[in-house]
């Protein structure tokens, strides 16, 4: 049974379809959704619901935004029949009535032990009423008393939605902590940030004005002016690294020095460690070779640090999830927030569970750089790997214990009406990679549970059917954390 990889959209953790060999005598391509228009040369799919093929002898035709060209002169392809529907949530076979049963849905309760956390900022314990403003987000005092993120006066506003409270970070403001010091552990570390980007209108691109969500800065390179690492939009542009800088429209979220057991400054990230001889202009090329052959190149470009893998992230707009049995076919039900006055509808509300972790490993013995440890840095967005990289670092590198941390909406604050909401922010460490993976999973499950009201847009168990109607959860309208697809 062949497996086909579909797209590169990070739509879910595993984008694949498994198709039987049975009844298939001709090579079948899988139509890629959310991709540029396809031609029939690679998209004669009998899976797509509305893909059409051109008639014989036609030159081109346009269907559903796609430009279709014939496979060859004289070949006519006709679709026969129509697609079947996916399975309904329930089938009534009642012994005593002809009604649907009432079915409710929620997320299973989960929790984790916070003893390994260094800090934890959360909003589930907000006591203030909606609309209250503050300038400080304090960490759980049981973990590290006194650590707090602070910004301008009234930069945080208590927001309530579906019975859950969280903060809006005013779009022109930021919250930060300067020069907080702690002993960086040598064991694997992880951090989670849960936040939402929103807009009053339907917005398909949230990143152009929100590309510096999570910023860390430290000064391990004495005397070197470093630019901070921005965690939401940064890309390794080819060619001259210094002209690249943070770029828009990429949603990368990682490489926090907070996550590394040995601090890597932006300068080092871009140029390699100060002991590494690197040719800046060919950095990207060498990276690709390193990736291709899984070995470092000889010569002056030896031992280059790899650039990150970049994967675009999809906006999962919770506004598209119907929350009403009376209008189960609604395609855009606003996300309703309250900040002390009247309800505020938001047509875009995209919730992100950002998971960042890093760990050290020894290089393979046959690699030339076996004098170096490898720092693995991974970021996952909503359960999908969005970014991963491996960095060579010397075991005895100097690192800084003084970190500057900053959370803000981006490098173009206040523009375009993008709003940002904060839910959870935590950082912890585990004794080894295996236990870290278990810890991360538990934490993610717990964060999902803690934010279930926002995910489901319901303060109670979400009603999915009543006696006569079924609330649909179609695939493209669901947050991937729900992992449930039926109509």
């Amino acid at each position, binding site marked *: 049974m062949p497996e086909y990889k579909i797209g590169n959209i990070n739509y879910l953790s595993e984008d694949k*379809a498994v198709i039987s060999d049975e009844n298939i005598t001709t090579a079948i391509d899988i139509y890629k959704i959310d991709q540029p228009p396809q031609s029939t040369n690679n998209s004669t799919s009998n899976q797509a619901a509305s893909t059409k093929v051109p008639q014989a002898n036609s030159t081109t035709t346009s269907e559903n935004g796609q430009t279709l060209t014939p496979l060859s002169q004289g070949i006519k392809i006709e679709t026969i029949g129509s697609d*079947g529907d996916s399975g309904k*949530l329930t089938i*009534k076979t009642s012994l005593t009535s002809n009604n649907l049963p009432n079915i*409710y*849905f929620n997320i299973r309760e989960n929790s984790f032990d916070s003893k390994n956390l260094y800090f934890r900022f959360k909003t589930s314990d907000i006591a203030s009423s909606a609309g209250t403003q503050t300038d400080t987000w304090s960490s759980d005092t049981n973990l590290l008393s006194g650590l707090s993120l602070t910004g301008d006066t009234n930069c945080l506003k208590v927001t309530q939605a579906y019975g859950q409270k969280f903060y809006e970070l005013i779009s022109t403001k930021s919250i930060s902590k300067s020069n907080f010091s702690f002993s960086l552990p040598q064991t694997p570390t992880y951090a989670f940030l849960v936040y939402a980007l929103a807009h009053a209108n339907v917005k398909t691109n949230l990143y152009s004005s929100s590309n510096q969500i999570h910023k860390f800065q430290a000064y391990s390179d004495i005397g070197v002016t470093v630019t901070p690492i921005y965690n939401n939009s940064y890309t390794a542009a080819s060619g001259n690294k210094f002209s690249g800088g943070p770029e828009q429209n990429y949603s990368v979220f990682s490489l926090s020095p907070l996550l590394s057991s040995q601090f890597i400054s932006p300068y080092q990230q871009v140029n390699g460690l100060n002991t590494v001889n690197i040719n800046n202009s060919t950095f990207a090329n060498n990276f690709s070779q390193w990736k291709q052959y899984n070995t470092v190149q000889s010569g002056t470009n030896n031992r280059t640090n790899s650039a990150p893998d970049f994967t675009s992230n999809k906006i999962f707009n919770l506004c598209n999830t119907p929350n009403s049995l009376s209008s189960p076919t609604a395609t855009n039900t606003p996300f309703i927030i309250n900040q002390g006055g009247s309800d505020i509808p938001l047509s875009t509300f995209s919730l992100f569970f950002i998971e960042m972790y890093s760990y050290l490993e020894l290089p393979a013995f046959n690699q030339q750089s076996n004098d170096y440890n490898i720092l693995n840095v991974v970021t996952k967005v909503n359960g999908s790997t969005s970014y991963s990289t491996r960095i060579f670092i010397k075991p005895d590198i100097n690192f800084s214990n003084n970190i500057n941390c900053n959370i803000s909406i981006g490098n173009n604050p206040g523009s375009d009406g993008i709003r940002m909401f904060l839910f959870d922010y935590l950082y912890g460490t585990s004794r080894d990679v295996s236990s870290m993976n278990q810890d991360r999973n538990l934490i993610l499950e717990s964060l999902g549970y803690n934010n279930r009201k926002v995910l489901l847009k319901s303060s109670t168990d979400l009603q999915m059917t009543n006696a006569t109607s079924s609330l649909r959860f*179609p*695939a493209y309208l669901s947050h991937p954390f729900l992992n449930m697809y039926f109509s």
Partner: protein
Amino acid sequence: MSTYLTGVSLSQVPTGFGGYTGVVIQNSGNFPVQYTINISSTTFDASVTPTKAADGLLYDTIFISDSLDYLDPNQKQITKVINCNESGSFYILHSPFRTFNLSSDRSEGAEYAAITINSQSNIGDSDSDLIINVTGNRITGFPIPKKLGEFYAVKDYSNIDALSTTKSPSLTFYWSCINNLDYFTGFKLELSTNSSFTSPTTDYLYVKENSDGGFPLYGGYDGFNNETYSLKKTNLSFNQDYYARIQAVNVTGGTGEYAYATGYNYDYPILDDTTFSGNHPSPGENLKITPTILYLNYLSNAETDFDLFDYVYQQNGNSADFRKYSGINVKFSPTDNSIGNATYKASSTSKGVINFIPRDNIQMAFNTGDGGIFRLELEFENIGLYGYGGQGVDVKNITNYSEATNGGPIFKFDDVKYNDTSDSSNTRTIQYYIYKDLDSIFYAGIGGGKGLLLTDETNKGFPIPINGTKIETINYINLKNP
């Protein structure tokens, strides 16, 4: 022997009950001493004479004993050896004369006995005898009983099973007498469906009379201390408010102060001080009996067409009578967590991955909790649920083909409604609650795809039919959505 007490007047004791006092002998000398304690026969004042006694018989009513629990009425002597600087004790027991010839002969009065204590040192010397003149006071009135304590109720679901003729819950009440000199002959327990105790159901429980002539008619010489009583109230209703209170009752029907009940869900509870002392304030605790949730854990790495009804049926002792439950909670998780998600599938589009369809030939009954519903809660941890895919279009030619079929469901649930014959005014309904963790995956069966027909217009060859795909497992990408 120094004498501190040569006469004792016992407390007033109603006829039919008993009383006692203890006597301590302290040996302050330098050698062990043997004490010989003798008691005389009982004498009476003029209130008791042979003519006033049944069959003209008088008998002893004041005794000596080493124990409050055992008495030999014929024992006239107790011998004790007490070491120097140690002490010993015995009891003086009094059970007033009660066998009068006529009811009109019944009277109050005094009853007398003399106790002589002889002491003999082990080196031979002896002291003069100590004589204690004992006066027992017989009364004809019956004091108001005192408040009872340790009053609690245990909620009992044990009779509620399919094999029992009793399909309703019970409350078993327990209480104790916690005061000395408390003279009662029974208890009055009131059970009310409201906290005001208007129109309660009332039960009387009477204290059993002693058959041992050496003992009082009711209780022991120390009254009813440490006696625990119980009464079971059956055929009660679920989800009904219940309050209970109890009084002790004396011979003439007089009742004492109320004690109010505390409720427990289990036997042998550890009582708090308030309950122990009978001081739970009015109206006491609501003893409402709520049906419980049946908790089940189902471990499996793979299932096909999982029959949830059959599973809970078996777990309930091959019974579909769930009337002692207001819900069922089933946690699904893999047997082996290292495999990642367990895989649950359906074998056809007519089957659900999880099926709850009661059988025609099995009567299903259940109780309801708050909101009048039976909750069937399904919790999924690391479970993948995959509906069965529909058949693609089967193409013969341009006009001859079979349409694609729809995919199968994940959940196939019956809309179960049930009229309880004992509660016909209410239709009981099952509601389904589905809880998943983030790792669990719910994929409906995908609908079958379109077919294709390829025709070579140039060579006019035979058309090539391509059937629509049959999806054996899941392709969420092509779910047909609004």
